[in-house]
């Protein structure tokens, strides 16, 4: 089985701030990581590989700075990693993002299962996975937390309101994987060292992907961001209740009583 895992690298949400005057994101000093749900997607793919054999390829669209994170994915067990990187890809909304990734998957060829995270931790639109599936004209199963491959078909359990459903689809298929549905493995120490020192990341630009400037990035986007603004968080009292356990309970009771 040939599997592709789409991996985005995202900034740690807690560290991201808006510059109050320029209204742009302050990127200095912000750490980034593999988008958490994508680690779950990778783990799910590696699990299937453990069971059925095959190959797991990590695919990402982004700047060269993604490299160390993609190497980490290789250290975790991916067989190969490809970065789609070109200045022309910048400023993409989900429409060209899903297109560019779909073109990467087409170039790879003969892919049986494509895994994505359910959503990213920065924008988290959840729109890229269905977009990729549509560009490729294949079935999608989103918000998946369990999967098995039986007789050349995928059976995946997805979360819906009030419960779950199990959907069966023929290969090739795209799955978006629920954040936290498994425990991503730690990279093996030796493999990590190998990935860092010897593994060569493949980088494909727009020419290698066979796409024109008009099909990608900002130019091909249907939406634009007019402005960024700080979500005004509600002002809180921040009053610390101190004292003996009895005093604390007493005070809490006083507050809660108003609502009984």
């Amino acid at each position: 089985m040939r599997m592709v895992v789409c991996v985005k690298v995202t900034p740690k949400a807690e560290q991201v701030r808006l510059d109050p005057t320029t209204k742009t994101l302050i990127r200095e000093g912000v750490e980034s990581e593999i988008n958490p749900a994508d680690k779950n997607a990778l783990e799910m793919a590696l699990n299937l590989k453990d069971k059925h054999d095959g190959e797991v390829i990590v695919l990402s669209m982004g700047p060269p700075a993604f490299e160390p994170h993609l190497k980490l994915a290789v250290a975790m067990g991916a067989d190969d990693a490809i970065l789609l990187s070109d200045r022309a890809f910048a400023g993409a909304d989900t429409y060209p993002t899903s297109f560019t990734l779909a073109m990467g998957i087409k170039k790879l060829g003969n892919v049986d299962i494509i895994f994505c995270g359910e959503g990213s931790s920065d924008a988290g639109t959840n729109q890229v996975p269905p977009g990729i599936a549509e560009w490729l004209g294949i079935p999608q199963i989103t918000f998946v937390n369990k999967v098995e491959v039986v007789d050349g078909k995928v059976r995946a359990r997805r979360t819906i309101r009030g419960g779950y459903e199990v959907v069966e689809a023929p290969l090739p298929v795209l799955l978006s994987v629920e954040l936290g549905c498994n425990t991503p493995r730690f990279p093996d120490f030796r493999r990590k060292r190998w990935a860092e020192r010897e593994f060569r990341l493949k980088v494909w630009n727009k020419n290698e992907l066979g796409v024109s400037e008009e099909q990608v990035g900002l130019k091909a986007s249907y939406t634009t961001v007019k402005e960024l603004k700080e979500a005004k968080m509600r002002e809180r009292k921040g009053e610390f209740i101190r004292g003996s356990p009895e005093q604390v309970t007493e005070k809490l009771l006083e507050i809660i009583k108003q609502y009984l």
Partner: protein
Amino acid sequence: MAGYKSIWVFLEQNEGVLEEVSLEVLGKASELASKVGAEVTGILLGHNVKRLADEAIKRGAESIILADSPVLENYMTETYTEVIAGLVKERNPDAFIFGATNNGVDLAGRLAVRLGAGLIAHVVELELEEETGLLLGSVPGFGGSILAVCKCVKGRPQMVTVRPGIFRALPPDESRKGRIEEVQVRLKPEDIKTRIVEKKVGKAIDISKAEKVVIGGVGTGGDLSLIKRLAELIGGEVGVTRPLSDQGIAPRDIMVGATGVGLSSKLAIVAGVSGAAHFLSGIDKVENVIAINTDPDANIFNHADYCVVGDLFKIMPELIKRIESLKG
């Protein structure tokens, strides 16, 4: 100026019940439509769901396009996309709004690419841009701390998904009348590649409008008995942080935060929760937040009205005992 003739609303139904968020979207769409003189049309797919069309009309739809067929009984990406894409291509609505449920975004994400349309994700604010008349949707990013105000600069319809629990549904108005147009469904079962082999849904619990909520986090060690008891005593609901749902300890429906439910309660008691960005947006509308945490530097204390530094397993039993004796 963007002209508007029609604004479409996807009426999501599960097991013959309209999703609350679809009614909320209808309410918002009616408000927008009255400003631009457009008609609000509800798009309803299902099997034997005509009475839901009547309900949607009472809640703000002026007309309904109904596709009723056994193949549409359950939501499936394939069938719903096929039917709805056909309708959009035929009639060219100016805007199309969906509730951002798992199925809503599964559908909208697929449709947007098929139609060549822009799609604004799970907005928490939706208005019209003065100069252009375009929809402006505020998309929470980075856990909800930052909002990106987005618009669809090309492609039609302008597509938007709306976060549940943000907008208000209109109260039912029995006197309202509307057109219901039933369309033919030409899908053949043999053309459908995917199938649902199992489905298990209980009554979905909606804690978004509960007046009181007691929320347990990882600090509970997964033992929610104190959380449940306190909630029961004060007549409130139970909520959890995402990791507890991830571990299967609590259902997704009661998960609070950016990827879960946004609360609008008067009181929330939050115990054993660190206060991550993706969690905090879920309690931002709560009037009064009490936090209990062993770590005096926990970020939750920066977002609480009353802060108790201490072990929830010591504080909560005391509190429960006092409330029990109070209630006799």
